[in-house]
């Protein structure tokens, strides 16, 4: 199987994640021909461009689409590949770097007003570093994506699941290599009192090791996030923050969870007299965007943000 792996705006964790296969990696490496994988083998953009169209069986792209160059590269890869998949939360949903979409003009903030990337002194303009795109995008906003291996980074179990399917040439289009059910399915914590009488932050309490974190007032995105990691974070004493992405029918995971959380606040003891108390609890959910859209802002939050931007322009 001819395999290509490429990173766009990435942290490299996705590339390292393959090593989590342990001995399994050797098995995998023995069965694939790596035609392009900057993190692992010496093959340059030129080598890639030389390849005939659709000559790569499977390409995995990790990272957010952040620069014009990212866009060019994935377009080339799309053309060269039979199957192209989003690998990891950034390519799948935009990931954490896509929270930058909340900020206008990143380079300007970085290097000061008036900064434009340019070529080295006296050299050709083409040698300038690539322009940033106005927004950080998930892979499927730029090229058609055949499948997804989700996670930040993808857990070994899911990577293995993917390679099995790939070797069996059984990658069904649109498949997401993770559970169809929510994380709670595989979470060992026990759920009893399904209502929020308070919202607390992980550093403010040391949660009971047995009980559901949500029941203890800690915002956990498990109920809206796909299973597949074995509930690693809840087992580690920390809430799920949604890196495997929303369950098939959840829609916008942030809004779905927002609805669930608001519904749970003091459920069962409502009444007009309880409104102020309810609001206080809801107000203690700080940074709703960073909390609920942590990985999915590019894919789900962006359309609304676009409207907001337009509004700002109109008003300006």
């Amino acid at each position, binding site marked *: 199987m001819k395999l290509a792996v490429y990173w766009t705006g990435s942290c490299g964790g996705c590339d390292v994640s393959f090593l989590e296969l342990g001995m399994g990696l050797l098995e995998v490496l023995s069965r694939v021909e790596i035609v392009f994988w900057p993190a692992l083998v010496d093959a340059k953009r030129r080598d890639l461009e030389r390849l005939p169209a659709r000559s790569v069986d499977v390409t995995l792209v990790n990272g957010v689409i952040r620069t014009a160059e990212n866009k060019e590269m994935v377009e080339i890869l799309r053309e060269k590949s039979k199957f192209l998949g989003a690998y990891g939360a950034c390519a799948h949903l935009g990931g954490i770097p896509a929270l930058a979409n909340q900020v206008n003009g990143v380079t300007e903030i970085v290097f000061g007003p008036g900064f434009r990337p340019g070529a080295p002194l006296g050299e050709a303009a083409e040698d300038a570093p690539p322009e940033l795109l106005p927004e950080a995008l998930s892979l499927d906003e730029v090229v058609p994506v055949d499948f997804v291996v989700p996670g930040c980074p993808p857990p070994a179990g899911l990577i293995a699941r993917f390679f099995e399917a790939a070797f069996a040439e059984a990658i069904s289009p649109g498949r997401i290599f993770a559970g169809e059910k929510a994380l709670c399915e595989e979470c060992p914590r026990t759920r009893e009192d399904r209502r929020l009488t308070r919202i607390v932050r992980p550093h403010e309490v040391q949660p009971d090791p047995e009980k559901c974190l949500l029941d203890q007032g800690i915002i956990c995105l498990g109920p809206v996030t796909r299973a597949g990691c074995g509930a690693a974070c809840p087992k580690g004493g920390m809430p799920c923050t949604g890196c495997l992405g929303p369950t098939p029918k959840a*829609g*916008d995971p*942030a*809004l*779905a969870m*927002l*609805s669930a*959380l*608001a*519904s749970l*606040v003091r*459920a069962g003891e*409502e*009444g*007009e007299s*309880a*409104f102020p108390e*309810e*609001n206080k609890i*809801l*107000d203690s*959910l700080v940074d*709703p*965007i960073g909390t*609920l859209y942590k990985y999915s802002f590019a894919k789900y*939050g962006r*359309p*609304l*943000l676009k*409207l*907001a*931007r*337009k*509004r*700002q*322009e*109109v*008003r300006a």
Partner: protein
Amino acid sequence: MPEFEPRIVAFLCRWCAAAGADLAGTSRLQYPPNAIPIRVNCSGRVEPQWVVEALKAGADGVLIGGCHPGDCHYVVGNYKTRRRIYLLRRMLAEMGIEPERVRLEWISATEGARFAQVVSDFVAELKRLGPLHGNGGRG
């Protein structure tokens, strides 16, 4: 350019707000035609995603009509909605969208006049805010 006519989607509880709207009809109260009503069993059925989808799909504002506190036909549905909309409005504000564009109103079956008033006020407010879609609210 003609005056901006805001577009509104109105999710109405069948037991109160929708009945109130009917009463406004039987009482022949005139109010602006900007709101397209969608009847639901209970305001508790309304999902934040519906509201956001409506805004994305071209609405300049979304109205949710539910029963007065204590009068919910299903006892507590309107309380859940109140909290969802409260939190949603905070989220919209953080995104830079005026929370005033999403309105939750208690309208009983007997409040035909109030229904007409609510719609008129909302239309006026949205005209003040201007189009959400920067193009006369069309698209």
